[in-house]
């Protein structure tokens, strides 16, 4: 066992959220260590070779690897101590002690403040409970993306994609470009899970049909996948008998969504019931003093720019905390009203401006986000759950929250 190491700020996870946190903490002149379990930083950005990253954060449009490289270079210049191939198996949140497993053995790090930025993982096949055989040829979209974009391997010849989340849509196009036939994308919900722009540029551009309110009802194959049965579903998502259709495919790609990665680390950290990630304040602090979280382990964000912005806030406050500078005893709840699903933050403190992120729970053509306590409304048109709505409020506007004891967020539908 190696001896313990001390640092001001420790960041767990080297994706966009963790890199931004490490960088901003270093800019506050703190000693920063960043731990990443893979052999390089970047997280999902490494395999997202398409463009559409960084318009807000870097004011230019980048591909995932380019965005990751920029943050990496800045971290190196600002002397962040990056330790890769280091897996954090546990965090003792009260004593701010982190247990690390690495090829050099197990060791501990003591930090004055910690930022957890472990990202999200894919919902696995088992969770979908599809009847039938369990042959090879069934992959999650992220795994297929890794094969194709990092390892130069194609998953098969003909594919069907289940789930219309962005990773599924992007993979549909990617597989066609690499010479595979993509029969269709099927989606259980009556609306797509991914961004409209991805429906246009990934499916419509390549004539790939999208079947809404449909799901896979059976997988068939000995050894390798041979057939997939697709059925239409009713409003309760139950398959409608007689609507079955068979596709001869050797590959089934699952894009069933991401889930914040919150296991393992600690049982003492509070989660948000709907976001399924860490419940944090607008300073990105969890329920435990000096423990911060940012990125897809708080809620699944659709833009890397949001993740990086939140990481930046988390890193800065962790740095201030490590210098004994901040006390967040005063916290008020943010409460979900109707038509709101994902909602960040869960609490409001007064150390930071308020960046509110929300997803509506169903498509709404004309709607308004209402912050009753603050007398603020934000109108939107053609709202869909796949596109997060962001609102930014300065500290002055936030004062009323203190008077009212919290903030209620609801979305109303207009005619």
């Amino acid at each position, binding site marked *: 066992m190696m001896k313990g190491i001390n640092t001001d700020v420790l960041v767990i996870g080297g994706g966009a959220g963790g890199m931004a946190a490490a960088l901003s903490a270093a800019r506050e002149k703190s000693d920063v260590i960043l731990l990443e379990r893979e052999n390089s930083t970047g997280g999902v950005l490494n395999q997202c070779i398409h463009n559409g990253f960084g318009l807000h954060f870097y004011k230019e449009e980048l591909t995932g*690897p380019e965005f990751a490289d920029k943050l990496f270079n800045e971290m190196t210049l600002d002397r962040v101590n990056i330790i890769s191939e280091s897996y954090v198996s546990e965090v003792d949140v009260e004593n701010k002690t982190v247990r690390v497993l690495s090829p050099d053995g197990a060791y501990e790090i003591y930090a004055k403040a910690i930022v957890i930025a472990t990202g999200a993982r894919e919902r696995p096949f088992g969770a979908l409970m599809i009847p039938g055989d369990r042959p090879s040829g069934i992959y999650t979209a992220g795994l297929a993306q890794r094969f194709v974009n*990092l390892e130069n391997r194609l998953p098969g010849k003909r594919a069907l994609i289940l789930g219309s989340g962005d990773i599924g849509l992007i993979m549909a196009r990617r597989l066609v470009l690499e010479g595979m036939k993509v029969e269709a994308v099927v989606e259980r919900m009556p609306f797509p899970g991914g961004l409209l722009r991805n429906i246009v540029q990934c499916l419509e551009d390549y004539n790939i049909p999208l079947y809404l309110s449909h799901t896979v009802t059976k997988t068939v194959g000995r050894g390798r996948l041979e057939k997939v049965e697709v059925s239409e579903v009713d409003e309760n998502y139950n398959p409608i008998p007689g609507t079955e259709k068979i596709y001869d495919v050797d590959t089934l790609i699952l894009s069933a969504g991401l889930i914040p990665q919150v296991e393992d680390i600690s049982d003492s950290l509070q989660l948000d019931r709907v976001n399924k990630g860490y419940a944090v304040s607008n300073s990105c602090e969890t329920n435990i003093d000096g423990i911060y979280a940012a990125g897809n382990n708080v809620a699944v964000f659709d833009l890397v720019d949001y993740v990086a912005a939140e990481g930046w806030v988390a890193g800065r406050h962790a740095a201030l905390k490590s210098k004994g500078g901040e006390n967040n005893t005063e916290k008020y709840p943010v409460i979900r009203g109707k038509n709101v699903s994902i909602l960040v933050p869960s609490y409001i403190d007064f150390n930071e401006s308020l960046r509110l992120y929300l997803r509506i729970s169903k498509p709404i053509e004309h709607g308004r986000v209402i912050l009753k306590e603050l007398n603020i409304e934000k109108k939107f048109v053609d709202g869909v759950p796949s596109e997060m709505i962001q609102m930014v409020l300065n500290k002055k506007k936030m004062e009323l929250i203190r008077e009212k004891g919290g903030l209620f967020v609801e979305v109303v539908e207009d005619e």
Partner: protein
Amino acid sequence: MNRKITCVMCPVGCRITVEMNGDEPVISGNRCTRGRQYVIDELIKPKRVLTTSVKVEDGDLPLVSVKTSGPIEKKIIMDKMKEIKKKTVGAPVKIGEIIIENIDGNGVDLLATRKVKKIHK
């Protein structure tokens, strides 16, 4: 004629409306000027930025990710993919390095979007 076109040039994904006033398209709903150009191209000659990867020899990674330096005509994309698949580059590769010059015949290059280190065997 009144058409709604989703701009794909950035993740904002503006829903842009085009109305024809005689021969003049009247464009609204774009949050920046790139959206206007996108819609005009979309009506006449649709274009896209292509991102894919190219094989690397002696690299610490088997592939280098690449992008076109600007949008290229949609209808040539599948042909260009064939050309790109035949290509192999030697490590090291720098970000921004030109992998195929003037890939569309209109001055758009294919550029590396990540660095690949050389490994010595």
